[in-house]
């Protein structure tokens, strides 16, 4: 309701242009890269400041290694999801809860394919070869993708949940509560990580879910400490005070106003963390306390097959190692790219 004689300003930045479809997609941070929409999007971008996501994506796109990493993640994510669906619905085995999506049953023993107990080298029917029990390495490697992706995602999700509850609380309240949380995080950092996980696994006993829990519970400190720093700087900003002035409760301020503004470094840490969790699972399985036989995970396969490499059966350990390395490389290079893309110091 304007006062008498005062017209609303019609400056460019205050007027919404009628480029509705394009407008919508662009605001959602996913620029449309096709045809005229791209041109209109470009015009739009030139006139208004970019959103965080749009800008990050634009900068990320120029980092080739990060895009390679993203593609690797996408491939393995699709593979992992397909394996999970197959596992749950029972494709392959015909029995829900033990299905697989692979040319052969990954756990089917066939001694004819393993003369002298040394497996058989890659061939047209078994491109990655077979192991000492005559099991198809390709099938085992593919099925193991499911375990590795699950570990990566669930373990990090557990760590993230704990970290993003304790971190913001520690940062926002500070004082003795914040100090106690951070000293607890220090304790978790003080122990060599793998030894701590080993200890935890010994207490919990082997098994897939215990791997999730061990890696997840022990990983919270990274996220909590990382987040606490951001919370400390965000909580001093005026909009936090403004939210409190509107009568928002502490929890509302922390989780609706502060936390969403501290997520950029967390995304990077998550991308790296998933790679790290996959490696940790591999290490646990390598040491014999992770995934239990006959189930396959990349780390388990490497552990089982390593000794056969000295006997000349190089193919057994090679392919799971490549899968593991490539996946972790994908997560880490994407995480690195994401960090560069969100780093304000590297802005052009």
């Amino acid at each position: 309701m304007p006062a008498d004689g005062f017209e609303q300003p019609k400056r460019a930045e205050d007027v919404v242009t009628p480029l509705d479809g394009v407008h919508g997609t662009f605001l959602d941070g996913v620029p449309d890269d096709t045809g005229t929409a791209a041109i209109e999007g470009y015009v739009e971008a030139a006139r208004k400041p970019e959103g965080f996501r749009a800008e990050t994506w634009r900068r990320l796109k120029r980092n080739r290694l990060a895009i390679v990493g993203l593609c690797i993640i996408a491939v393995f994510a699709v593979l992992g999801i397909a394996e999970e669906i197959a596992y749950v619905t029972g494709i392959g085995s015909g029995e829900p809860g033990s299905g697989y999506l692979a040319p052969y049953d990954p756990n089917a023993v066939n001694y004819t394919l393993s003369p002298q107990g040394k497996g058989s080298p890659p061939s047209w029917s078994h491109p990655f070869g077979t192991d000492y029990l005559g099991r198809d390495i390709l099938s085992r490697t593919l099925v193991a993708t499911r375990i590795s992706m699950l570990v990566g995602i669930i373990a990090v999700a557990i760590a993230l949940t704990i970290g993003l509850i304790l971190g913001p609380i520690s940062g926002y309240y500070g004082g003795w509560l914040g100090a106690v949380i951070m000293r607890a995080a220090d304790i978790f950092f003080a122990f060599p990580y793998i030894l701590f996980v080993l200890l935890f696994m010994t207490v919990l006993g082997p098994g897939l879910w215990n791997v999730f829990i061990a890696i997840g519970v022990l990983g919270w400190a990274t996220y909590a400490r990382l987040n606490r720093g951001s919370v400390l700087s965000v909580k001093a900003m005026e909009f936090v005070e403004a939210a409190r002035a509107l009568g928002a409760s502490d929890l509302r301020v922390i989780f609706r106003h502060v936390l969403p503004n501290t997520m950029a470094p967390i995304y990077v840490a998550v991308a790296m963390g998933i790679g790290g969790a996959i490696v940790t699972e591999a290490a646990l399985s390598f040491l014999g306390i992770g995934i239990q036989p006959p189930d396959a995970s990349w780390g388990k396969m490497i552990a089982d097959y390593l000794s056969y490499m000295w006997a000349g059966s190089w193919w057994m350990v090679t392919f799971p190692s490549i899968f593991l390395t490539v996946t972790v490389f994908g997560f880490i290079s994407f995480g690195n790219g994401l960090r560069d893309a969100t780093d304000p110091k590297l802005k052009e």
Partner: protein
Amino acid sequence: MPNRTLEVKDLSTHFFTQAGVVKAVNGVSFGVDSCKTLCIVGESGSGKTVAALSLMRLVPDPPGKIVAGSIMLGERDLRALSDAEMRRVRGNDIALIFQDPMTSLNPVVKVGKQVAESIVMHQGKDKAEALRMAIELLDRVGIPDAAARANQYPFEFSGGMRQRVMIAMAISCNPDVLIADEPTTALDVTIQAQIMDVIRDLQTTCNSCVIFITHDLAVVAEIADDVMVMYGGRTVEYGGVDEIFYNPHHPYTWGLLGSLPRLDCKTRLTPIAGQPPNLITLPRGCPFSMRCKYVRRECRDQWPELEIVGPDHGVNCWIPVDERRQLRAELDYITSVCVSDVIT
């Protein structure tokens, strides 16, 4: 005066820091009636903002603490409320408009949702209904195409538009008291005029009382009904806007008025000599005594009693009334003449 919307008595807010006790607000009293505007004037560090935050009990604790005084909102003493009750007062009965619109909106929440948030919190409306009301509010504060704008993020808004959003948030629950903490300082002059129009407009439709904190005397002349001049955490003078501009009694008020720029006469601006006081080492007496040209012995030793010099016009100063009149007459050529131009 009974039944004022907001009545503050002897409010003292101190900050207990390692360097010492910062007496940011030191026994300040004021009141506002509905539909009236009180301007709190003073230089940086005079305690204006802390006084406002104290009203909402938003002073960061630790180190800050309201050490004395009462804050009566209608019948309720805000100092006696529990934290949960106080949360219901904030945003609902007393709302605050912040100084810098660029940093006062959450950058990752859509504007409509931010305005709707306090409606959801205080009025128990569901989200869709609150959003609809938020769009209405945005329209009311003069944001064109409010429905589309509500779906945008703050970075897509200019400073003036953001301040309108802040105002929409503040008035979303029809507060009894609207505190505006230098709402136009970060804006340029044309936008400032528009924002003032919006605030004035809303005041008449909402029956709110407005506490307007500023150091801009031109703004005061335009908007105020009453004026309170603060210095060093104390009220040095209060009164109706005309009284303060035409009949100022405190040397600090003279100084403020004397430092106003004018377009028509080519006299140099008269700054107030010296620096604002260190709030930790305030003198026992008048905080302005360190800079006052007319300082006398009692000024340094004791804080003067409130002296009523006119209808609803009070001053805390040791200089006797007659002497003040005389001193002011000597300054007249820079104060009252200049000020009349500002007002008209």
